[in-house]
């Protein structure tokens, strides 16, 4: 496949393992480094407020993110699912869009244990209800 060849730094996977096993981190935001050569971690947070997470997704630039969702099943059980987000808003410039779209595989393939993937191009598509709807299916 035509991929850009941008590689994820080891820290990306390490932080993800921490989120998956440590159960304290809520989300991680990833981006492509300024020299366009590798993928790095911008932010890791324990903040459980989903709205604060959404604020980390810029209006005019692309990002990837991993979010550890906690939700209740219809019969009341607690569940956790890790969701991968590709954030590529239509307002972003074409170059980052291209770059993120063609580099996604480099990051995504190195993260094991992701339950679902969301491709977001506007805030509607990453809204809490949309995502929960997707997870419960």
């Amino acid at each position, binding site marked *: 496949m035509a991929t850009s*060849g941008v590689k994820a730094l080891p820290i990306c996977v390490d932080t993800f393992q921490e989120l998956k096993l440590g159960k304290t981190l809520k989300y991680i935001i990833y981006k492509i480094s300024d020299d*366009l050569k590798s993928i790095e971690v911008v932010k890791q947070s324990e903040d459980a407020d989903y709205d604060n997470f959404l604020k980390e997704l810029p209006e005019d630039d692309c990002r990837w993110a991993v979010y550890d969702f906690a939700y209740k099943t219809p019969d009341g059980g607690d569940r956790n699912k890790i969701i991968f987000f590709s954030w590529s808003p239509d307002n972003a410039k*074409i170059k980052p869009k291209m*770059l993120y779209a063609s580099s996604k595989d480099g990051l995504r393939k190195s993260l094991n244990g992701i339950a679902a993937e969301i*491709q977001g*191009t506007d805030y509607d598509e990453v809204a809490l209800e949309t995502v929960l709807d997707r997870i419960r299916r």
Partner: protein
Amino acid sequence: MGTYGGDEVAALVLSVGHTWTQAGYAGEDTPKSIFPTSVGWVDLPAEADQGDDADNSEDTQMQDVTQDGASASDSNHIGKKDADGGDVAPQPVGAGLVPSKKKVTKRGKYYVGDGEISCWRPDMEIKSPMKDGLVEDWDALEQIWDHAFLKRLRCDPTEHPLIITESAWNTREIREKLTELAFEKYNFPAFFVAKDAVMTAFAAGRPHALVVDSGGDMTSVVPVYDGYVLRKGIMRQSLGGDVLSDQVLQQFKASDVEVTPQYLIAKKSPVVVGQKPNVVLRDRPATPSFHKMMQMRVLHDFKESVCQVAESTYNEQNISTRPQKPYELPDGYNFNFGTERFKVPEIMFNPKEFLKNPTPEQENFVGLPKLIFNSAQSCDIDFRPTLFGNVVLTGGNTLFPGFADRLHWELNSIPHSYKVKLHAPGNTVERKCGSWLGGSIMASLGTFHQLWISRKEYDESGSNIVNKKCV
């Protein structure tokens, strides 16, 4: 700038479509050069097999004239006065469609590029090397490559890597032949072939997308998932801009209006709306293929100027209240177009009803919404919500005003449970050159160099390597 072998070298990006060829440097946001993917040539008579001599005598007898009558910049032009009458043996007006009677064995000098092919030359044939998204005429394709690299970009192919785009249904044989062409004839140091649908999807920021490409020759719907083309979901039909133009031509004919291209017109004077044109024609016999191309240009301009898509299902009563638009043909005939201007692009949505006098092949055409729906439906059920949520529009034929709105409306009125989101770049360059742009950005990435097929790899494995490296 991309990196290759440690040096900063801009890669070349080439996208050869049926109608237009786009060529430029990676990392730039528009192609340096866009020219028609058509070549012109004059067939040489069977006995005149004398190489250069034949060419020269051909050139001196010939007047090169651009379509508005000014002398062309070619070195062999004789001048305006001669071109307007003079040396050409008198032939009856309208003899433009007399086919060449000579028996031919080979083609003479090729003419490529906007200026060259739109010059009127007696007996010049015009052809596009592409058919249905595949290379059909390799000689002609080489002319296009030559023109792009040597005449337009004026670069040394041995110094730049080359990335080209191909249709999603390209065959193994053609890809191998393209690879051979790049390495053997042009000596490119590195080469890559990318699927145009994938490049368009990436340029829209989506590794998953349903790419709807409507161009001059055909319309295709290609599902892309994770950067891979889902082959079984590819839907295409040869209903594109050219069919629309042909229909306009037929309509004009039916109302007894002749579409006379610019190259035939010597003098015209204004006439009242709807009246016969008052025009003096030039005596310029041309081949049917040349005449057709020039007619198509007029019709192309007609479509761009007046045609529009109804925002919801076509309703004659509603549409007849919309304002009319005037249009004047090159010969001075002018008319105010009302419902007609909506009926033309309507063919894309409802060919059964709006396509007049269909050929047997055309009778099987389905509307674009149906084509998109069929494509998504033939993909895995888990992919469908994502595909419907990421429909990407590209190709010049989607630029009719109202096209995207209408398509969105139609896709929502087909019963299904998916949320449809249509991505149609407002910027016309992005819409016309989507795949070129994708290739340009892709090849400009510093990290991309590891993916090129290098000369060394080609020498070791042969052209088959393209099927392994460029999937």
